[in-house]
């Protein structure tokens, strides 16, 4: 069990949580230094959301200790949450209010004064790219706009730490890139981000460090490049075509590791030259040669089978 460092924005040690005898979080430890972006990755049901709920003091862990922003959670969770912003997975903007009213009402939950919130609203809307939308009703906003407003709402109390639970799920590429840009601006301003996502490119791009969670256990933790270097061969060749499985299995020595899924074969190699030469003789097979990515690490560590 790790020792909690009081300087960390968030530290979690020996966290356990069960529901009806089913251990959803089975003893995890991690810590997030201030001003960094930490990613929590894992298949559906891995325990990510439960971990976040424990960290915010919304549910009591069965065992383990959590410190958030210098406060013990759940004992002192309300004080901890004064300095925290949350972008939840599902939209819970207030549909009865306009864009500005959403920020105003939310600011009041933090005990902020009306004049202070009013003074912050222009900056928040500017940051979220929602200038001119002050009086718009929530129902008239696009999915991307709602996410950005949720992000602006999470910043209304000028938090040190921001939790983001799948912030770009369901967004088009333009909207995702805009959110990424804003999240980078936040870390540049010294804020700590704690992010869950299913998008490996998002995690690779944004996170200084990340942890992969599966079946309630922390499978690995590290910087994205470091995890790729540690867990996976540097080159990947994906081969597609009919009967690719049989072809690939008969040539499994061409890569250090081979995985077959449906009509695709994945060769993980240090040296791809012999494999590419063999593929040159197979006009019916198509292939993609690329560098190993975080997604390869994720699949290797958590398997290919569906989790829903």
């Amino acid at each position, binding site marked *: 069990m790790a020792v909690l460092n009081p300087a960390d924005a968030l530290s979690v040690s020996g966290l356990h949580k069960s529901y009806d005898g089913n251990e959803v979080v089975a003893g995890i430890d991690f810590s997030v230094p201030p001003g960094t972006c930490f990613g929590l990755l894992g298949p559906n049901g891995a325990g990510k959301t439960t971990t976040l709920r424990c960290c915010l003091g919304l549910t009591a862990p069965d065992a383990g200790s959590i410190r958030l922003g210098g406060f013990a959670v759940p004992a002192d969770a309300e004080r901890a*949450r004064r300095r925290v912003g949350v972008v939840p997975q599902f939209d*819970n903007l207030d549909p009865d209010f306009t864009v500005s009213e959403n920020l105003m*009402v939310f600011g009041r939950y933090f005990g902020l004064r009306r004049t202070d919130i009013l003074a912050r609203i222009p900056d928040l809307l500017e940051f979220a790219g929602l200038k001119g939308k002050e009086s718009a009703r929530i129902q008239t906003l696009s999915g991307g706009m709602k996410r950005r407003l949720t992000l602006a709402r999470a910043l209304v109390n000028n938090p040190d730490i921001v939790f983001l639970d799948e912030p770009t799920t369901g967004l088009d590429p333009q909207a995702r890139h805009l959110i990424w840009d804003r999240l980078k601006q936040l870390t540049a301003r010294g804020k700590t981000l704690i992010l869950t996502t299913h998008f490996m490119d998002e995690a690779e791009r944004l996170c200084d460090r990340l942890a992969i969670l599966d079946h309630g256990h922390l499978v690995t933790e590290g910087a994205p490049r470091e995890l790729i270097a540690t867990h996976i061969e540097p080159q990947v060749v994906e081969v597609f075509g009919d009967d690719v499985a049989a072809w690939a299995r008969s040539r499994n020595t061409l890569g250090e590791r081979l995985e077959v899924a449906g009509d695709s074969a994945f060769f993980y190699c240090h040296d791809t030259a012999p494999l590419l030469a063999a593929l040159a003789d197979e006009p019916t097979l198509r292939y993609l040669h690329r560098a190993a990515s975080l997604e390869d690490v994720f699949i290797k560590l958590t398997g290919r089978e569906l989790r829903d």
Partner: protein
Amino acid sequence: MNSSNLYAFPRLGLSWLPVWQRNFLVWRKLAIPSVLGNLADPLIYMLGLGYGLGGLLPQVSGVSYVSFLAAGTVVASTMNAATFEALYSAFSRMHVQKTWDAILNTPLSLDHVLAGELVWAASKSLLSGLAILVVIAALGLTSSPLALWAIPVIFLTGLTFAAMGLIVCALAPSYDFFMYYFTLFITPMLLVSGVFFPADQLPSLVHVVATWLPLSHAVQLARPLLLGELPQNALGHVAALLAIAVVAFCIATVLTRRRLLK
């Protein structure tokens, strides 16, 4: 609060004010239709039954039937307003719009959310009850200054029914569930609590049970006040309503914590 203690007593204090204020701001946008909507239905019943049925009746408990019915209408519509708010509106905010989830990510706790909802539902029912009281006064059905004491009675009645409604809200899987509460509890209570006719007309067993119901206490406080008399055993009725409100709110708080803070 330490959320590990799901069974603690609800927390006191005024931190719930922003939650109350949120609901008030939404209500303000639709205030006039809301008040008119809450006023129309009970007034139609009161005037229709009061003058229509009342024309066939000699005096009821020593006054005209419409005067008798006036106090019952005030507390019944207070009960309805508080119940609707604590059931349908609170459930929408908890389960459909996830407004409570958003609030729980701030320094406020679920106890504050529930206290805000409780006082809000009572406040909204106070407006309903008051609107009817004003109409009753305008019609000359009450003229005693004692009727002003009906105002705190209305608020207390609202608190009691809001607290009970929040229990149902905490247990509800969907909106359909609320129908049971109305058909099995609210409507029978409306008929045995002395709103439409003196409760002592009922078979004695029913009457005895009815005297324990919260609406009976409210009726027995409001009716004399509107007729310009001091209620008998006023303290007992107030204490009974308060006790039901406190116990119901404690139960609602524990049930809602169990639902949302698992």
